[in-house]
């Protein structure tokens, strides 16, 4: 089987899984009987694992042969042809998409295995796995697509699956509306994305180009034409990214998305879907390079998001919410990296973040499951002794996210910070470091409160199956070693990751030979991270309520932080309410009732009957009148004919 065929198979495998499980779900739903869990689990996990195996094989093909920079299937079928544009579907596996595919299929498979335990005895078992496979299918289309349109198809598809999965417990209204919120906010971002696509099209068309205008190869070839509009295009596409990857101002859906089952949060909102925005910017980085302004915007937005989310995370009491805001914050870091011209660092952070965040989410899921769906961290505690198999990987991941060497997060975060230092104002660097410290702080706060100290819960945690422990452990291991992919040179490593993705940036940043400075900064940030971690650890393990006095002193600010800075409320007041008001009063009562019903529908009927009544006035029944009209007609006739 040729490489191209294998490549095409990769996204199709989860599609098959989806179809089979969906079929089972539908059939069982009709008969209202229970689902054969073993069969469904087998189907659901088989296909992602197969996809992963294929991904590995193709990865080694790419790695082994330096001649091949990409495996491309070319256009598989033409979706639409309209005058100047040819839109066709095809897949391409280059270094960037290879990395993404490995993460998606690898972490995805682990999460599938985990879910077989987590979702045990849930009524919608088959439906869940169908959706999960469906999601993988779309995500793979997104990263493997060879054109902007294919990417967008995947983009929309994962938005859909995210809605389906977040609103999985659709019987409960708030959870269902969380799914709705995710989809709507996503959609707003997608509008920006589409505007970006239209701008690209406009440039190409006005230059009388035609053909496969939106394929990545084509865009890259003609990118100079896009230069004058590069900022507009870049920013419009970035709007889409803020929606999908939860940046300011469209991050509001992600914390609410925790209403879905925890494996969903792990897969979609830690490892894969939210990284789609980062992937897209990295993929189209050659456009962004032409517009430094857009890069500045991206960096600023990313940093602001990272900082804001970190502040909110510090005061959260729901274990999943902490992790959610942490995700938003780390995504901010990724965009910050992109903004300063280091897409390699951004993608590196994507990978390491996938490892430790997924590990933590699954770990949190294990805790929640064991404590019978308790999610408030103040009702947990002392779980390290009771659930060591879960706690240890969680600890490892926490250290990783704090950015402490030699675990994974350190290398990726440090590369980002170093790039920020080199290519951004000093203020931004300091804020980034501060946020890194805050990250360490609140993550260790989480760990300490959940796993250390006395057990404050209500029920004893029950035993977890092997299928839930194993994935967490594997991910924890990856969190440990994952960083070694990108050890920077000054630490006597060859930054494999950076070289692998070096082609993304055209303008090569000259590495300043200031190794001494880099080393110092690295040590400094490490010390800072360790300090914050230990601070949190010691404070929280001794006395949980040590923040009482602080809370009282800064009561106002504390309230704002707890209220997530009231962003949702502001949106509700300024945007949602007016729209609803307008829809109801103006458009419904005004336009629909009066105009459409009254004027057009009833109006035309009334006009008809009025005209009829007018005409009947002529029929008086009096002979004389009829003769009069006859006479008049004769007169007119004579005038017309004889003049």
């Amino acid at each position: 089987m040729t490489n191209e065929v294998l490549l095409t198979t990769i996204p199709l495998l989860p599609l098959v899984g989806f179809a089979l499980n969906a079929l089972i779900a539908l059939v069982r739903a009709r008969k209202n009987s229970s689902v054969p869990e073993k069969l469904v689990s087998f189907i659901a996990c088989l296909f992602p694992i197969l996809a992963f195996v294929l991904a590995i094989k193709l990865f080694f093909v790419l790695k082994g042969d330096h001649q091949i920079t990409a495996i491309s299937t070319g256009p598989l079928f033409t979706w639409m042809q309209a005058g100047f544009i040819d839109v066709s579907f095809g897949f391409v596996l280059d270094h960037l998409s290879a990395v993404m595919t490995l993460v998606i299929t690898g972490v995805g498979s682990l999460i599938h295995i985990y879910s077989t335990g987590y979702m045990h005895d849930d009524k919608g078992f088959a439906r869940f796995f169908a959706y999960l496979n469906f999601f993988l299918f779309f995500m793979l289309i997104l990263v493997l697509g060879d054109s902007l349109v294919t990417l967008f198809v995947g983009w929309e598809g994962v938005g859909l699956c995210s809605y389906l999965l977040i609103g999985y417990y659709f019987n409960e209204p708030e959870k269902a509306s969380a799914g709705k919120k995710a989809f709507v906010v996503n959609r707003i971002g997608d509008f920006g994305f589409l505007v970006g696509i239209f701008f690209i099209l406009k440039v190409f068309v006005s230059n009388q180009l035609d053909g496969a205008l939106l394929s990545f190869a084509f865009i890259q070839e003609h990118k100079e034409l896009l230069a004058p509009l590069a900022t507009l295009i870049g920013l419009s596409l970035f709007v889409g990214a803020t929606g999908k990857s939860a940046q300011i101002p469209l991050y509001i859906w992600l914390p609410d998305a925790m209403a879905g089952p925890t494996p969903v949060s792990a897969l979609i909102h830690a490892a894969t879907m939210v990284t789609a925005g980062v992937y897209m910017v990295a993929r189209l980085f050659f456009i962004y390079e032409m517009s430094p302004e857009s890069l500045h915007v991206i960096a600023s937005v990313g940093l602001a998001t990272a900082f804001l989310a970190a502040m909110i995370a510090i005061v959260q009491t729901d274990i999943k919410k902490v992790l959610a805001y942490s995700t938003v914050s780390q995504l901010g870091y990724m965009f910050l990296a992109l903004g300063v011209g280091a897409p390699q660092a951004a993608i590196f952070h994507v990978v390491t973040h996938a490892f430790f965040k997924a590990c933590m989410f699954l770990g949190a899921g294990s805790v929640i499951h064991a404590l019978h769906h308790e999610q408030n961290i103040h009702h947990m505690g002392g779980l390290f002794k009771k659930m060591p198999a879960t706690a240890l990987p969680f600890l490892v991941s926490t250290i990783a996210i704090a950015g402490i060497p030699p675990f994974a997060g350190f290398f990726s975060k440090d590369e980002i910070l170093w790039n920020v230092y080199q290519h951004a104002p000093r203020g931004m660097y300091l804020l980034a470091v501060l946020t890194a410290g805050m990250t360490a702080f609140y993550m260790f706060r989480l760990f300490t409160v959940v796993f250390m100290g006395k057990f404050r819960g209500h029920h004893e945690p029950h035993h977890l199956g092997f299928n839930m422990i194993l994935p967490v452990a594997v991910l924890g291991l990856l969190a440990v070693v994952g960083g070694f992919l990108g050890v920077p040179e000054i630490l006597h490593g060859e930054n494999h990751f950076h070289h692998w993705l070096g082609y993304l940036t055209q303008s090569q940043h000259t590495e300043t030979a200031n190794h001494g400075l880099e080393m110092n900064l690295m040590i400094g940030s490490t010390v800072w991270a360790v300090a914050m971690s230990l601070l949190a650890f010691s404070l929280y393990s001794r006395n949980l309520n040590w923040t009482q006095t602080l809370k009282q002193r800064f009561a106002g600010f504390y309230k704002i932080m707890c209220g997530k800075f009231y962003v949702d409320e502001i949106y509700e007041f300024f945007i949602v309410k007016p729209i609803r008001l307008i829809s109801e009063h103006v458009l419904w009562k005004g336009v629909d009732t009066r105009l459409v019903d009254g004027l057009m529908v009833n109006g035309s009927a009334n006009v008809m009957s009025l005209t009829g009544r007018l005409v009947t006035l002529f029929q008086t029944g009096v002979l004389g009148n009829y003769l009069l009209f006859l006479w008049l007609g004769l007169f007119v006739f004579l005038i017309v004919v004889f003049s």
Partner: protein
Amino acid sequence: MINLHHYLVVASLMFTIGLAGLVIRKNLLVIFMCVEILLNSVNLVFVALARDFGLMEGHVVVFFVMAVAAAEAGIGLAIVITLFRKRQTIQTSDWNLLKG
């Protein structure tokens, strides 16, 4: 001198008078008489033109018109009688069954 024009003018006046009467009057019999006026005006035109062209055709036509008028008068009056037997009135304003 009296020429064709005068006769044509007279005929037109007659025609108009007959038409006006047709519309104005409500008595069915008077309406009928107005029809006769119309026919007569036409006869006048024919005869005048015949005299003008010097052809006899005009007179022949007049002959036929008169015959037809007589027949029509007869039948019309028969209808009037039938109507009268129905409604005991010959005012057209009483026959308004077609009023919409």
